[in-house]
Each structure stands twice: as C-alpha cells, then as structure tokens.
C-alpha cells in the first residue's frame, strides 16, 4: 500500500534530449523493464491459477453465497468508514490549517501521530479494553482511527496551498463564510479527498490483523482462513482474484469521481497565505474535536498498553524472543528498504529524466502494486517459488522480493521527488567527462538526491516493520519479527506478553511518521 500517492510531487519539466535518452536510457530502460515484469507477476499468477483451475471450478468457487457475504461486508465497511473519515479529516484540517484555534500546529502533529500505531495494534487496544466490541461498528471505528491521517495529510496540505483570492472574491460578492466554504473551498479539495479516500479504501481491503482481531470478515481474512485450511488451494486464490477486482473497481471509481476539472490558478503572481479565520466564541470549544480524536486514536492504545505492561511487570521485557524479533525486524526493514529503493531507482530516474509514453506505461506497472493487498502478493510468491523456483522457497530473498513488490510505489514517489531536485546538467557533465550513465547516476545524482532517497527508504522501512501477512506466509523457518510475534501472542490471548512488541513497533514507526508529516508540509509549500 502506498502512503505516498497523496504526497505525489509532479516531476519537474525537463526537456528530454534525444542524445541523452539514447546514452543513458537503454540500460535504465532495460532495468526498469525487468522490474516491471516482476511487478506484473502477481497479476499474471492469478490469471494463470484461474486458467489452471478450470472455468467450472473457478466459477463454483467465486459464485457462492460466502463470496456474496464477503462482498456485502466489504462494501458496508467502505461505505460506513469513508464518509465519516472524510468529514472528520476535512473538519480537522480546516481547524488546524485555517482557523485561529489555539495550538493548531500541535494538533496537526497529533492528528498525524496515529500513523505510528499499526492498525492491528489499534484493534488490540480496543478489543482488550472492550471485549464485547466487535463486528461492523468496531471495524468502522477502529478503521477511522487508524487510517484517518491518510486523508488528513493531503487535505490539510491542499488547504494550505489554495489561493485565497477566490474566497475573497466570493466573500466580496456577499457570500456567507459557510457558503464560501461549500462553493469555493470544498470543490478545490476534491483531488485531495479523492486521493486520500482511495488510499484509505485500499487499506480497508488489504488489512488483515485489525479485522481478524475484532471479528469482522473481509476478503483478506477469508483468504488467510482458506490458506490455513488448505495452504494455497484454488479457493484462496479465487478469493484473491475477487479481491483484486475490488481494488481495481475502487481505483476506477476514484478516477471517475476525480474528474478532469482544472484547479490551478491562471495568470501570474503567487497566492498569499490565507489569513486564519476567527472562530470567535467557538475558539476553545473547537478544541474538543482534535482532542477527542487524539484521545480515541492515541489515548486508548496508550491506556491499554500501559495497563498490560503494569500487569506484566518488568519480566515481560526480559523475554529472549523480544530481542530476537527486534533484530529480525530491523534486519528485514533495512534490507527491504535498500532493495526496494535500488529496484525503484531506474524507474524513478526514467520518469523524471525521460518522460514519455513508454516510461509512463512502465511506471504504471510499478505503481499498480500499491493497490494490491500484501496477501495477494504473498500467495503468488508462495506458489511460484514452491512450484517453479524451489531454491528460492522460504528464503530471505523471497521475503525481500515480496517487500520490494509491495513497497515499490512508496519508494518511487520519494525517489522521484529527490531526483527532480538534482540539476540534470551535473549528470550530463559527468557523462561528457567519460562516466558511464550508471556511474554518473551513482556518483552524482544519488548523493544529491539523498534527502529523497532517505525519505523513500524510511517509508519502505516503516512499511516492512509493521508488515504482517506477507511475513507470516513467506518467512524462512525460525524467523521472528515484532509483528509476527505480537500476532502469535495475541492469538493465544497473552495480551500482557504482547504489549512490549506493540510498544517497540510504535517506537520504530514514530520517526517515520514525523518525517511524513514534515514532508507533506514541505513538498506542498508552506
């Protein structure tokens, strides 16, 4: 899943020189092509299994009441989660960016902070606090709390960027502030809302731990159930196929809703920052909203975790497994980040330096994976390695490959932004002095693009550190990560022993969350 769809920075327009494309393009194009082929593997795999299973069996497995139930569940989840999440995100963004609410900046941070709490830790917090809380209402509440920042970040950034001139014009024509908001501001937030909603919607489809814990069945939980009952049988794979169709449906819907209206200002000049709107008597009561959100999304996990840590005492920190799985997590996060960024590099460079129809096609091969749930990627890799590439089966290499595929889109966005800031002239100078394109890229571009590279790595590492499903399905014998150990312990209802794992996951995710927040503000101009 990509955090970063929403933080997309458009590539700087660089006139692609024919000669340069010729020089550096071919090798990079080949590399990017190879990565794209790998990226198409999960999709090709599902098609292959469907053909292999045979039309009749596949049809019987897809066209059954259980799939209908899951479809209804999934639709209900999307329909009940997205509207309140959008409302809440817009309200919070407006309060923190446009109003004179005290401590707006602080609350902006606080609203993004839940990103550091993995979704399945969020549901663990709620489930162990309120044991009877389950099903759709619980799923909706916890999903809103866990994923709201994905909507808040782009909406808040867009609010900062909007030119207030239009609003002033509308106000001067006698429109009331609320009408100005509805008719001028809200339409300009459409892109941000659509992008953020798509991201949240895809997360809802892909999430496993959250819904398994609070007993709400979705396609992803049903796929894991099937996997555990029959390993990679056709039933699991056909469910995965339906899940992929769901994802594509969601993307199509977003595409239709987004439309193609133009939102940028025309003409010269630069927008000035919008003056904060006075809340008057509402200035202090308005605090209730961000405070309530923080209490539910951060307070509840903190309360639950500290309760279990207190129950368990000091001993719970002295489990051998804790250190081992921390080391495992750090290792996988580091390796995964390095490998993913390396794999995304050729494509990122191409899309900045040589944009064109072919590169755009390759790029979409890279980024569609952001819409595929981890369980689909993992299921494909399990079967492919066990049937065709057995030496790779259950190896670190396969797990890393899964991480590369899953987090390629994240890496791409960070890298693109970084590379776009490197003057192309320096690269060309290096090449004209005899460096090969690859060496010029490594020696000149990469170090200058370091901030972007670092951000990309951090994004991937954060994803890996809290990844559950692919690790569960693919990891080599004896592997333990914070996420898998936490999952094993909570499955045995050992909430106290699980608490330190949750704390460590949160601590690991915090710096990356801060980085995301800072990046969202910076890249969209403050």
């Amino acid at each position, binding site marked *: 899943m990509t955090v970063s769809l929403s933080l997309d920075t458009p590539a700087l327009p660089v006139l692609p020189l024919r000669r340069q494309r010729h020089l550096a393009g071919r090798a990079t194009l080949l590399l990017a092509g190879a990565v794209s082929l790998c990226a198409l593997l999960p999709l090709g795999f599902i098609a292959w299994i469907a053909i292999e299973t045979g039309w009749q069996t596949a049809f019987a497995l897809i066209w*059954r*009441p*259980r799939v209908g*139930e899951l479809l209804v569940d999934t639709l209900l989840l999307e329909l009940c989660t997205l509207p309140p999440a959008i409302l809440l995100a817009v309200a919070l963004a407006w309060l923190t960016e446009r109003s004179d609410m005290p401590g707006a900046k602080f609350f902006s941070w606080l609203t993004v902070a839940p990103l550091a709490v993995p979704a399945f830790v969020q549901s663990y917090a709620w489930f162990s606090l309120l*044991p*009877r809380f*389950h099903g759709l209402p619980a799923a909706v509440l916890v999903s809103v709390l866990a994923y709201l920042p994905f909507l808040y970040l782009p909406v808040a950034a867009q609010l900062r960027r909007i030119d207030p001139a239009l609003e002033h014009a509308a106000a001067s024509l006698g429109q009331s502030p609320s009408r100005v908001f509805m008719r001028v501001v809200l339409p300009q937030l459409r892109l941000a809302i659509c992008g953020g909603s798509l991201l949240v919607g895809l997360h809802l489809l892909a999430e496993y731990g959250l819904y*398994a814990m609070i*007993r709400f*069945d979705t396609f992803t*939980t*049903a796929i894991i*159930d*099937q*996997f*555990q*009952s*029959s*390993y*990679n*049988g056709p*039933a699991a794979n056909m469910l995965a196929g339906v899940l992929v169709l769901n994802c594509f449906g969601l993307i199509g819907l977003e595409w239709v809703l987004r439309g193609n209206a133009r939102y940028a200002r025309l003409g010269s000049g630069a927008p000035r920052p919008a003056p904060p709107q006075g809340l008057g008597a509402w200035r202090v009561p308005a605090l209730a909203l961000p405070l309530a959100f923080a209490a539910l999304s951060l307070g509840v996990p903190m309360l639950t975790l500290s309760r279990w840590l207190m129950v368990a005492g000091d001993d719970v920190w002295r489990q051998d497994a804790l250190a081992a799985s921390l080391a495992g997590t750090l*290792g996988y996060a*580091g*390796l995964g980040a*390095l*490998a993913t960024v*390396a794999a995304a590099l050729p494509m990122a460079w191409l899309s900045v330096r040589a944009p064109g129809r072919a590169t755009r096609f390759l790029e979409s091969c890279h980024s569609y994976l952001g819409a595929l749930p981890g369980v689909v990627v993992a299921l494909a890799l399990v079967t492919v390695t*066990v*049937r065709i590439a*057995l030496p790779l*089966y*259950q*190896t*670190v290499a396969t797990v890393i490959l899964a991480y590369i595929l899953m987090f390629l889109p994240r890496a791409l966005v960070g890298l693109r932004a970084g590379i776009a800031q490197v003057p192309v002239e320096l690269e060309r100078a290096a090449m004209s002095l005899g460096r090969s394109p690859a060496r010029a890229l*490594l*020696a*000149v571009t*990469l*170090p*200058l693009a*370091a901030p972007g590279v670092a951000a990309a790595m951090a994004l991937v590492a954060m994803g890996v550190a809290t990844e559950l499903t692919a690790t569960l399905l693919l990891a*080599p*014998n*004896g592997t333990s990560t914070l996420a898998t150990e936490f999952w*094993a312990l909570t*499955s*045995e*209802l050992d909430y106290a022993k699980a608490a330190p794992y949750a704390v460590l996951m949160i601590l690991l995710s915090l710096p990356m969350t801060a980085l995301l927040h800072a990046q969202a503000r910076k890249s969209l101009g403050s």
Partner: protein
Amino acid sequence: MRSYSSLALRIGVLAISLAAAGAVSAQDGITVYNAQHASLTQAWADGFTKETGIKVTIRKGSDTELANQIVQEGASSPADVFVTENSPAMVLVEKAGLFEALPKDILDQVPAQFRPTSGRWTGVAARSTVFAYDKRKLKEADLPKSMLDLADAKWKGRWAASPSGADFQAIVGALLVLKGEKITADWLKAMKENSSAYRGNSVAMKGVNAGEVEGAVIYHYYFFGDQAKTAENSSNVSLHYFRNQDPGAFLSTSGAGVLESSKHKKEAEAFVKWMGGKHGQAVLRDGDSFEYAIGNGEASNPKLEPIAKLDAPKVEPSQLDSKKVTELMTAAGLL
C-alpha cells in the same frame, strides 16, 4: 560523494550476506514444522536440546496449512519432523507417502488407539472436545445431550466455534467418520445458520465468558490454561463433556512424524521418541499446556478429567480426511 554510494552498496552486500548466513545457520540441527501450540513445542524442543545438544528450529503454522505445505514441497521439504495439534493433517501427509515408517520402540510408547495402524507416525498428546458454556445462563438440564443437537433450531444464535481452526476441523473429521457425509453436511449447514464464528478456540471461550454466546464447541485445555493464569477469560465458564461415545466426545490425537525426505533422520526420530517418552510426557503433566499425556503409564495433569471417564468414540486416526472436511465446510459457507 562517490564514497557515499559505494558505501551504501557495500552495506547492502554485507547485509544480504549476513542474512544469507543467518538462513544457512538455521539449517543446523533439525527443522520442526510445528502446528502445536508454540509454547508446548518450544518446551519440548528446549528439553530435548538440553538433553541431547541437538538444535531445533521451529516453523510455526496451522495443521492443514503446514501439512499442505509439506505435500507441495515434496521431497525437497526442509522439514525433518512434523508436529500437529490433530490427526487429519498427519493423515494428509501420510497419504502423500511422505512419512518414514517409525521404529517399533517409538510406536510402542503409546497405546494403539493413539497411532495409525500404518505406523508412519505416532501420537504425542491428546485433547478432548467439550462444550464450554456460560454457567450463569445454562443449567445442566439445558445442555445439549449430543453435539448433533446443536443443529436444532432452538440453538440458533446461541453457540459458537472456530470453524477456520484445525481443532474444529478435526472434530468435523470425526463426525464424518462416525456419521457419514450426509449427516455431516447437514449439520454444517445448520451450524452456518445457528452459530457465531470466532477466530481461535480461546477467543470463542472469551466470547462465552463475556456473555456474547451461551456456549462454544472447543477443546478442554483452553479452559484449564486460562484458569491456571488469571481466569480472566473463563471465570463464568464451565465445561460440559458429551461422553456416551458421542461425536462431541471426540478425543483428538496430536501427532508427530519423521519425513522421508529428512536429512537428519536419526536426530528427527530421537526427537519424536523424546516427545512420546517419559520426559516429553512429563512436560504435559507438569507444564501449563493441560493437554492429555498418552504415553503408556504416563499420568496427565491431575486437574483434568481422566481419559477413561470421557467415554470417547472410537475413531481410527488415519480415517480422518481433512481435504473432504475443508470441502464440506467451504460448501456450507463456513470457510
């Protein structure tokens, strides 16, 4: 500037080789595909390693998941030993012809009812099916006489189970052997109507305890395990044993076997022997797993209802068919 990127490359190469080294070193000793509770097998492995010096690497998974995995891996499986919670998964691997015949001294450690006649694997522990009920809501007279009664419309919305778990699928396997396909399929259809699905036996028991449902079909030891800890999830729960050789009194055998493809057969056999032997069974008696010890003359935890009193139905373990069970459950819409 160049040094940065080459440094990054070097770190990358180093990390990859470290990880590869880690993966290789895990291959020393034996690899156990474990579907039993992690803590129980860990206790067995620790005791065994301490006594013999043979290292044990454990891969976690569920019964049928790992069994199917072994079947797909075939001759190149990295597993040396397969340990399960229930028998159907063992049967799956046995049918694929992947188990090594066990020596007589290992088989003779447990009574014949706890191992298949083929002698390709053996039992190491057992677990009894129970109806865990909310003692605030149900009196003894209200309890179902047979597990089949739960298909009755009067039980609609009142009971729970964990259909995605291997435990419950083993119970369905026994039902299939005892009553045949028609009755089993009908019962599963009624179950889809009547029951709530939880993910995991302990979660189902927690649901009973919290008053969400009146009862749940689970195994006995989740109750005893929770009682021994904080009793937080079982304080309102009592156990009902169906007895009378009812399908609901099914006693499920946890199995262990050595794979034909194992490159460490001697060590693998030693581990299976150790689990079924005196020390391994003592782990069941003294530890906090609360599963039944089944070794000849070995005692179980004194808190448990004795096996002899359970009046369990006779089910030949090698007749349990997990594949058919999954099919029937998928058809009933439970999976």
